[in-house]
C-alpha cells in the first residue's frame, strides 16, 4: 500500500464530490441523483450497514434518510441495532485487528464518537459537499477536521407526570428533593445528563467543570437520599407507564415518544438549565474504498434539508441545516431550541472535556449511588 496512491485517490474523490455538489446545487437536484452521471463512480455495494438505535429512533432514520438514500442510489440500507456503547468495542477491535468493521456508518453520541475519533478509528469527512450548508452545530468541537459530523442536538429535560405536580410544573432540579418524591424519581445509571445541572443546583459554577465539581457531588448525594431508580431509556418509559416514578432526567425524544404512546407526561428545562448535547454520524476505518465512498454519500445525504426534515420530525429534535420546520407539537418547546435565547438556558460543555473526564464522573456517580 503506497502512501501516494491513497492520497491521490483521496484528492480525486474530493474534486469529484465538489463538482457533484456544484452540479447538484445548480440543478436543484439531490447530489445523489446527479452522481449517477459520473462514469468513474465506484462500484456500488449491494447494501450498507448503518448502526442505529431501535424503536422510534430507527423508524425515523429509515423514513428520513435510509429509504430516500436507497431510492436515489439503489443501495439497500441494513440497520444494525446494537447499542452505541456495545458496538464501540466491536469496531475498535476490528480496526485494531485490521478487519473490515461490522458497520459502514455509526450513528453515535458525539461523546462516544469523539472517543473513537481520538483513538483514530474514524475516517475524515471534511470533503462532504453538503457540510457547507450546515450550521456550526455540525462541527465537532475540539477536534481537527470532521472525524464526525453532528446531525442534531438534544436536551436532557426534566420529564414529569403532571398529576404528581398539582401546583404546576417543577421549576428547579431542586424540586426533585421534595420528600413526597422519595423513591419516585429516575436518572440514567451513569448519571449522564445530570452532572452539569447538578453542578448549578448544588451552588457551583459551570466554569469550574471539570476542576471543581464538588457542588455537583453534594447535590447528587442529596438526590441519593431520595432513593432514585437508575436505568436506561426503556426503563424510564416502563416506569412512567407502570406508575413507578413521577419524574426523570431523560432525553426529550424518549419523553415525547412515551407521550405519543398515551403516557401522561410533560417536560421542562428547569431554571438551572439542562444539558444540551449532539449526536452525529461517522465512518469506521478499514472499509473497502468503494464502500467507504458510498458510506460517505449516505452521511452527505443525511445532511440534506429533505432528509433532515423527515428524520428530525420523527425524533422531534433540532437539526444542523437552516430552514427546518419544527414539528407542530414542539414549536417554542424548550426541548427544541432554535433561538439564541432558548440556547441560553441550556448547558453545553465541549465534548473534549466530557470525554476526558467522563469516566471519572461516572465512577464518582456510581460510588455515590451504589454506596
Amino acid at each position: 500500500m503506497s502512501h501516494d496512491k491513497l492520497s491521490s485517490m483521496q484528492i480525486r474523490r474530493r474534486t469529484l464530490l465538489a463538482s457533484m455538489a456544484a452540479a447538484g446545487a445548480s440543478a436543484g437536484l439531490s447530489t445523489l441523483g446527479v452522481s449517477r452521471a459520473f462514469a468513474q463512480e465506484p462500484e456500488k455495494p449491494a447494501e450498507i450497514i448503518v448502526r442505529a438505535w431501535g424503536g422510534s429512533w430507527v423508524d425515523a432514520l429509515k423514513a428520513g434518510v435510509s429509504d430516500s438514500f436507497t431510492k436515489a442510489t439503489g443501495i439497500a440500507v441494513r440497520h444494525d441495532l446494537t447499542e452505541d456503547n456495545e458496538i464501540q468495542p466491536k469496531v475498535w477491535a476490528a480496526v485494531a485487528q485490521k478487519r473490515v468493521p461490522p458497520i459502514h456508518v455509526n450513528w453515535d453520541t458525539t461523546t462516544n464518537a469523539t472517543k473513537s475519533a481520538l483513538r483514530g478509528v474514524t475516517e475524515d469527512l471534511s470533503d462532504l459537499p453538503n457540510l457547507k450548508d450546515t450550521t456550526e452545530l455540525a462541527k465537532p468541537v475540539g477536534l481537527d477536521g470532521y472525524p464526525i459530523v453532528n446531525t442534531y442536538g438534544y436536551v436532557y429535560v426534566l420529564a414529569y407526570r403532571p398529576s404528581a405536580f398539582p401546583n404546576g410544573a417543577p421549576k428547579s432540579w431542586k424540586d426533585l428533593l421534595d420528600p413526597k418524591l422519595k423513591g419516585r424519581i429516575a436518572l440514567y445509571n451513569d448519571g449522564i445528563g445530570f452532572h452539569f445541572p447538578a453542578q448549578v443546583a448544588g451552588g457551583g459554577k459551570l466554569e469550574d467543570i471539570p476542576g471543581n465539581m464538588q457542588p455537583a457531588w453534594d447535590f447528587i448525594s442529596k438526590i441519593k437520599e431520595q432513593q432514585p431508580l437508575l436505568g436506561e431509556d426503556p426503563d424510564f418509559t416502563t416506569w412512567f407507564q407502570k406508575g413507578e416514578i413521577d419524574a426523570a432526567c431523560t432525553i426529550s425524544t424518549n419523553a415525547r415518544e412515551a407521550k405519543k404512546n398515551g403516557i401522561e407526561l410533560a417536560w421542562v428545562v428547569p431554571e438551572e438549565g439542562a444539558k444540551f448535547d449532539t449526536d452525529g454520524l461517522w465512518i469506521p476505518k478499514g472499509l473497502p474504498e468503494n464502500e467507504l465512498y458510498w458510506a460517505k454519500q449516505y452521511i452527505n445525504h443525511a445532511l440534506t434539508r429533505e432528509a433532515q426534515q423527515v428524520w428530525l420530525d420523527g425524533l422531534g429534535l433540532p437539526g444542523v441545516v437552516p430552514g427546518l420546520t419544527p414539528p407542530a407539537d414542539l414549536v417554542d418547546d424548550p426541548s427544541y431550541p432554535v433561538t439564541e435565547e432558548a440556547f441560553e438556558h441550556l448547558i453545553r460543555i465541549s465534548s473534549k472535556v466530557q470525554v476526558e473526564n467522563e469516566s471519572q464522573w461516572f465512577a464518582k456517580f456510581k460510588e455515590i449511588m451504589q454506596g
Partner: protein
Amino acid sequence: MTGSRSKSVVLWTFVTAALLMLSAPTVVVLGASFTAGNIITFPPDGLSLKWYGAIAQASDLRQAFVRSLIVATICTVVAIPVGTLAGIALAKYRVRFARSIQIYLLLPFTIPLIGSGIGLMLVFGNAGVLGKLWPVGIACCVINLPFMIWAVTASASNLSPDLELAAANCGAPPLQRFLYITLPAVLPGVITGSLLMFILALNEFLVSLLLVDARSVTLPVQIYNSIRSIITPDLAAISVVFIACAAFVIALLDRLVGLDIFLKSK
C-alpha cells in the same frame, strides 16, 4: 400414614412455591401477548391477535429465528460428544489433577459472560471468522459446556464397574463395553444436558451480541437491541411463538426417545 402425608405437604409446599416463582412472569407475558392495546398489561386490554400479525410481517425476525436454530444446533452437536466424553472420564476414571481439571472446566462459569464475550471476540477476530454463524455456536457451546459435563457426571453414579467387568469377562471388547454399558448408563444425563444446551444456545444474547453482525444477528440479540423506548406487546408475542416452537420440539423428542423414562427412578 401421617408420615407420608406430612411428607407430601412439605414437598408440595415447596414445589408449588417454585412453580409459582417459575411461571408467574411467563403466564403474565403469555396473556399480555393477546392484548388489543398498545402496552403489555395483565389481564390483557381486550383480546386480539394483532401483535401476532405484526410479527408475522417481520421477515428479519424470521431470519433471525432460523439463525438461532442453526446456532443452537451447532452448539448441541458439538457439546454432546465433548461433554459426554469429559463427563465419563471424570466420573469413571481416577484422573490426576482431577480437581484442577474440574476448576479449569468450570472456567466458563467463573468468567463473567462479558469477559468471555470480549475474549472470544478477540480470538475469533484474530482468526478472521467473525460474521459466520458457527463461531457463535461454538461460543454458546463453550460458555455452557459445564452444564453438559456436570449433567453427565451427575448421572454417572449409575455406572457400575461390576457390570463392565462382567461384560469384559464375557469377552466384550472395550468399544462394545463403552457403547452398550457405559453410554446407556449416562444417557439420562446426556439427554438432560443436551436439552439444556440447545435451549440456552437458542436464548443466549450477551456473548452472541459481541460475535454477530447485522447480517448474522440471532433472535435474542435482535429482540434485545430493538428495545429502545417502548416495550410493546410484539415482544410478548415473539416469546409465545418461541415457546410454541420449543414445545413442539420437546414433544417430538418425547415421542422419539421418551423424555419420561430418563427421569423416572427405577
